[in-house]
């Protein structure tokens, strides 16, 4: 039984009720041909099985006894809390799920008047048509995103953006992740392992509960965990552990993603070992297409646009101080934004006109 059924993705809610799906439940092994008023979902073949795994869809399917296959574009299919401050959202984005490569990201805009913010594609399931976003809640936009429940959706999602990660084809790679950066390192490690590269990972977090993606990375190779307070794994920074690994030799390339100070420290460390190091930069972005230049970073004394030339660069060439500095450009506004969201818009207004 592999009859084709049709699945519709819609952007506008009014369309929702008029679009239909399949005849009965026995089709669970069928292929679903996605139709859509948005061809980001067009002509992608998904398995119903894959979709059914996501309860969010299933609840939306059932209506008057028949299965209604219908999902809004960019619906949240699943939500999982990974650490006190880090949430994983599986989002429906079939086209991106099919073609994304490690290192690429999307830009999302939750709703009207929301900011456009960049998020790395941490994982993707082409069969289910979903991508995973792993989000650390640091300000208003990220806070609103992680508050989404399965079945709710993101208004705008564009991608995959940026260049895929520069890969090696054989040898050994050291993947270093700090905090939510571990989620960014994961797809890179996955792709490396698939190529037959030996992958070792060092991941860090504030304390035990802040360590993410440990299990996923263990499937790919040895993992060393570092926590600032020593509550799990080794006490100390990832750079300490990395130094030992590099001392032992045999590492051909290092991938380091995390807070800017951590990436800077890693780049300084590997420079002395002469090991090529790729870092993923996170400047403020708007369009993600090279149109605004807001994401500019200095790499090897040249101005580059992280959204189109990056986001990954040779860590030995990056001007981290400038990046850190530019990231603080809107600090005052970020506090106002939160204050306003918490109901004190007056405060925000006053500060913004001062």
């Amino acid at each position, binding site marked *: 039984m592999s009859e084709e059924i049709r699945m519709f993705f819609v952007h506008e809610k009014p369309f929702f009720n008029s679009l239909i799906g399949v005849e009965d439940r026995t089709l669970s092994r069928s292929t679903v041909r996605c139709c859509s008023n948005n061809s980001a979902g067009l002509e992608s073949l998904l398995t119903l099985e894959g979709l059914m795994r996501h309860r969010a869809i299933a609840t939306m399917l059932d209506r008057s006894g028949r299965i209604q296959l219908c999902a809004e574009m960019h619906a949240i299919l699943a939500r999982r809390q990974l650490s006190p401050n880090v949430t994983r959202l599986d989002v429906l984005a079939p086209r991106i799920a099919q073609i994304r490569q490690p290192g690429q990201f999307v830009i999302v*805009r939750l709703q009207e008047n*929301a900011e456009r913010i960049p998020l790395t594609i941490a994982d993707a399931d082409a069969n289910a048509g979903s991508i995973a976003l792993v989000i650390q809640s640091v300000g208003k936009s990220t806070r609103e995103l992680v508050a989404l429940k399965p079945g709710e959706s993101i208004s705008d999602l564009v991608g995959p953006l940026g260049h895929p990660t520069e890969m090696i084809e054989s040898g050994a790679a050291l993947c270093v992740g700090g905090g939510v950066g571990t989620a960014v390192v994961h797809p890179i490690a996955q792709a490396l392992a698939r190529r037959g590269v030996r992958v070792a990972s060092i991941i860090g977090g504030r304390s035990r509960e802040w360590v993410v993606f440990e299990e996923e990375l263990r499937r790919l190779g040895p993992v060393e965990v570092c926590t600032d307070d020593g509550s799990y794994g080794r006490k100390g920074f990832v750079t300490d552990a990395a130094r030992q690994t590099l001392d032992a030799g045999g590492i051909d390339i290092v991938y380091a993603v995390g807070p800017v100070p951590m990436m800077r420290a890693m780049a300084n460390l590997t420079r002395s070992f002469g090991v090529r190091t790729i870092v993923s930069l996170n400047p403020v972005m708007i369009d993600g297409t*090279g*149109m*605004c230049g807001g994401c*500019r970073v200095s790499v090897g004394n040249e*101005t580059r646009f992280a959204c*189109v030339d990056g986001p990954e660069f040779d860590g030995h060439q990056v001007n981290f101080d400038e990046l850190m500095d530019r990231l603080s450009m809107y600090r005052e506004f970020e506090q106002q934004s939160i204050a306003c969201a918490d109901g004190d818009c007056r405060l925000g207004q006053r500060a913004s006109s001062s």
Partner: protein
Amino acid sequence: MPGKLTTQQRLRIRRQNMPEQDSARRAANFEEVNLGFSEQLALLEADRCLQCKNPRCVTGCPVGVNIPRFIDLLAKGKISQAAQSLLCDNALPSITGRVCPQETQCEVECVRGAKSQPVAIGYLERYVADWARAHRGPPATTTTPPTGKRVAVVGSGPAGLTAAGDLARRGHAVTVYEALHKPGGVLVYGIPEFRLPKKIVAQEVRRLEEAGVKIECNVVVGRTYTLPELRERFDAVFIANGAGLPVFMRVPGENLKGVYSANEYLTRVNLMAAYQFPRTDTPILRGQRVAVVGGGNVAMDSVRTAKRLGAESAAIVYRRTRNELPARTEEVKHAEEEGVQFHFLAAPMEVVGNDKRWVSGLRCLRMKLGAPDPSGRAKPEPIPGSEFLLPCDVVVVAVGTRANPLLTSTCPELKLNRQGNVLVDDNGMTSLPGVFAGGDIVRGAATVILAMGDGKRAARAIDDYLNKSTTI
């Protein structure tokens, strides 16, 4: 009585002024500056037109709008026919009536300009177009039967929108792909609300959708889909992705906090509505003293935006003189009225920062005009030892844009010129059969009307191409 005036009588009527928001009030809001002609003003102005046998104005219009015809119909009180006449030459007259540089196109040619002032063609165009927008019915459902041909349009700026409308009218199934979350191109992210209300662009876009055009936002061609993929899925492709890559000055200090490209500055304010922060989520630095480098429309839009964001002083820094400013005359006039300062014959050498790496000033060099450069404009030459510091806390760089290589770099077979602009033949077709291009991606930063003209021409050429490929 309209239409019965003698030439003498017509010559005696003076050019009517555009009613405007008071300059002090408008410099603090984002509402449209020009309020539009009343019926009375429009009819009076229309009577100024001499109905020339060989109308020079038409030769000045890049798309050859039959100007005397629509003005004549307007003067005779046949506004509905005037609107029809205008709309059959120009698909988006409410937009061009507001943003075209009439003073270098139609109005500069108008015979009345020799002895007094030219007919206010732009204001009349706007009047008739706005009337039409308020009074038109739903778009005519295509009179042509569907051809079964599919055309992809990349970019929803004026070139893309015009082509999409014309192609849909010819019965083709059109899908427009837009990288941003809102269609309109520069019309929505660049040109500010106070010059072109976004409501107008949204109405035109909705009208296209009602006419059957499919618009998909959040699709970056070159990333979400490649050009070769589009060629496989569609019978023809029209590339109209604009010239959206900002050029920086390449002087020290350009990455200090407080330096924006005009694209970023305007996008934050227009597309992301940062002027309403914190009601909206996107912030913008509201400088007290803002310096805008450049002299074109983009610079004027930025500096007037700075004023409206509450800057105490907002200044243009331009390396030539007032006479060479490429911006529309009206924008310069409005900027002056709103209290914008102009530093002419000044070229930035460095953005200066304080110890926290925030912008604190712009170090400039005085210039003098020398011999004409290849473009015929006097070349600015630095005066040695003339350095001065312009104190400011925000710098907006509006010195131009280039072709964005994002799309073209994913399709090496597409022939480009040295600047990265797409090369096309007389029909707007690129080096790839069935792939056409127009607007700023071909011309470099140009104008709305030229982009629309390209869209129109490409639609015709694509139609021919598709008809030919059917008969083969």
